[in-house]
């Protein structure tokens, strides 16, 4: 792919090399300069207005958004007018880049700023700077650290989900009737909203008095089937629900990997006298390793965002035993309106995730299939 695209690019460059007239060039540049000045002016007026220095200004910051949109259009026009063909090509990428910068990069940087503030939305005084004290408070917050500990448990549990999903993928890949029916049925849990699942399973099936799961547990000899009272049982119950929702995703990707596997290899193993377990252990599993590592990493990335089910079923209880970092921060904001501290917790978590995933990617690079 890379080679052929290089070829096309070469041809494009010949077209691009046509001279662009000076007037067009200047017009494009001028347009961009004008739009930039306008964005800067709107921003300046609004900052001064918000600061109380000048009375003229807008009621809210929305004009800044419009000015940014105008600036984006001007940038696109400038690319085309001043750079011709190359500008036309840049136009494909530009909208997505400008969007992502506006919606991710800026808010994340802004988040670093908020994290250094003492800012409680419910108190009357506004935000004021308090440097690193949010960070210091974070290190003394036992609930936050216990939530981080829970994340370790939830992340390790991905391996269990993977084992079950692999089993299901093998089942679906074997010679069975009604394969399509089973595939659709096994996929269904993934489609359901975690919030609805929290009610369907967490709050009604696992209900202590007359939920069917509790009734079944009683019939099996567990006298006191409280799924959310004891810390470890609660953790496993939450994990079971999340597994129910997410196993289909792992299963479908493993199934695609199994179906892409060359049939000859397994037949050769059979000829050599390998039994089912041996051919799985020495043939299927090693061939599936790149797909497995890739799907595990994607799954871990999503697992690190786990929040909906915890918020809706246990709200972190009992005593923070099931809290994920996201659900804990959600409550810091919802119950205490503490924006500054909540953001500091979130940013710290982001840094931990980035370091963890970098290490993970470095360690597994050898086995991973090329995703990017």
């Amino acid at each position, binding site marked *: *792919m890379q080679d052929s*695209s290089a070829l*096309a690019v070469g041809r*494009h460059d010949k077209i691009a090399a046509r001279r662009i007239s000076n007037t067009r060039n200047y017009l494009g540049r001028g347009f961009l300069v004008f739009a930039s000045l306008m964005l800067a002016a709107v921003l300046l007026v609004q900052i001064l207005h918000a600061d109380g220095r000048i009375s003229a200004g807008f*009621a*809210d*910051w929305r004009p800044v*958004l419009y000015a940014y949109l105008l600036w984006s259009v001007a940038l696109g026009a400038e690319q085309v007018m001043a750079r011709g063909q190359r500008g*036309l090509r*840049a*136009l*494909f*990428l530009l*909208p*997505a*880049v400008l*969007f*992502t910068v506006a*919606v*991710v990069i800026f*808010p*994340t940087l802004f*988040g670093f700023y908020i994290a250094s503030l003492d800012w409680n939305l419910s108190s009357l005084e506004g935000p004021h700077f308090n440097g690193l004290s949010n960070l210091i408070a974070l290190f003394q917050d036992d609930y936050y650290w216990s939530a981080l500990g829970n994340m370790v448990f939830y992340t390790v549990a991905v391996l269990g989900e993977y084992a079950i999903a692999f089993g299901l993928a093998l*089942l679906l890949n*074997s010679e*069975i009737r009604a394969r399509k029916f*089973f595939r*659709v049925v*096994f*996929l*269904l849990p993934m*489609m*359901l*909203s*975690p*919030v*609805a699942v929290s*009610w*369907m399973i967490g*709050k*009604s*099936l696992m209900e202590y*008095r*007359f939920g*069917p799961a509790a*009734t079944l547990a009683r019939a099996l000899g567990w006298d006191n089937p409280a799924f959310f009272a004891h810390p470890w049982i609660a953790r496993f119950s939450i994990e079971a629900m999340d597994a129910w929702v997410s196993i289909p995703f792992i299963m479908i*990707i493993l199934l*695609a990997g*199994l179906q892409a596997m060359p049939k000859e290899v397994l037949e050769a193993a059979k000829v050599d006298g390998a039994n089912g377990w041996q051919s799985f252990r020495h043939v299927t599993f090693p061939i599936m390793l790149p*797909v497995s590592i890739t799907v595990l990493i994607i799954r871990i990335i999503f697992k*690190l965002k786990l*929040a909906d089910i915890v918020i*809706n079923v246990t709200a972190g209880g009992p005593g923070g035993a099931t809290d994920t970092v996201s659900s804990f921060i*959600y409550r810091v904001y919802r119950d205490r309106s503490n*924006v500054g501290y*909540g*953001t500091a917790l*979130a*940013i710290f978590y*982001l840094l931990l995730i980035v370091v963890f995933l970098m290490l993970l990617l470095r360690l597994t690079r050898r086995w991973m299939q090329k995703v990017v």
Partner: protein
Amino acid sequence: MTVLAPAPHRKRRTASRTKWAFGRVLIYTALAFWALICLFPIYWTVTTSFKSAVDVTQGHLIPWLDFKPDWKGFRSLGLSPDTILQTSTARAEFTSRFSNSVLTSVGASLLALVLGTLAAYGLSRFRYKFAWMRNDDILFFFMSQLILPPVVLALPFLVLYKALALLDTTFGLILLYTLTVLPIVIWIMRDQFNSIPIELDEAAFVDGLSVWGAFLRIVLPLAIPGMAAAFILSLVLCWNEYFFAALLTSTDAKTLPVMVASQTGSQGINWWSMAALSTAAIAPLVIVGIFLERYIVSGLTTGAGK
């Protein structure tokens, strides 16, 4: 001797026969067991919406045999046959949340599809150099957005949206949802474009089409399967999103998951109405899952097994 000879052979064959049959039984038992695990919660929710309190507490499971189904749950939402024509505040709220969900998820999926398709085509066909960033770096930049947990963005967005007067608006939510699905769209679409031979583009250039002409008239129609997969997958993800919606909406732009979540807390155990609400919330996706499963699978398995 010659008569006896086939005996051990036949014995071995029946042995392998029983072993084979045993394996079959095992496989189908496992399949049926997992199908039960997948379907039972859905079955339970749907049937509970037709139960009265007594039927719930006594654990009745099978309609008509165990209990007499009644439109109880849907009546409380104003959606049962006898209440559908009357005015109902519960139904008004439900339809407003439902249409918010539809607007938000369709809007965000469309926006992500447009932005993502353009970017994916660019990344698949041309070589960019943006400061130190090459194509692979730019793609990694987009994909790395997946790592960002929603909590990191949620609070800054709360503050920003307040300043921009976008809090509790569908448009504000659409922007955020677009962001969460954009990496997935780019991933699927880039794979789709890579599978379309570049000779087609070149032939279009020879015919005198511009870059955009070739893209819009030749390549894009061929990429429709990938676009369908990306769109449906985004739709599912946006429909189910709860975290941002819970923090950034309050009255006007509230989506269905937020409504479901708020009902669990406030009403105590009003089982039939909760079950009816959950049924209504998952029904669109169950239908999508059954009829459009092909696209979801092809979207998810992009890049797997190569």
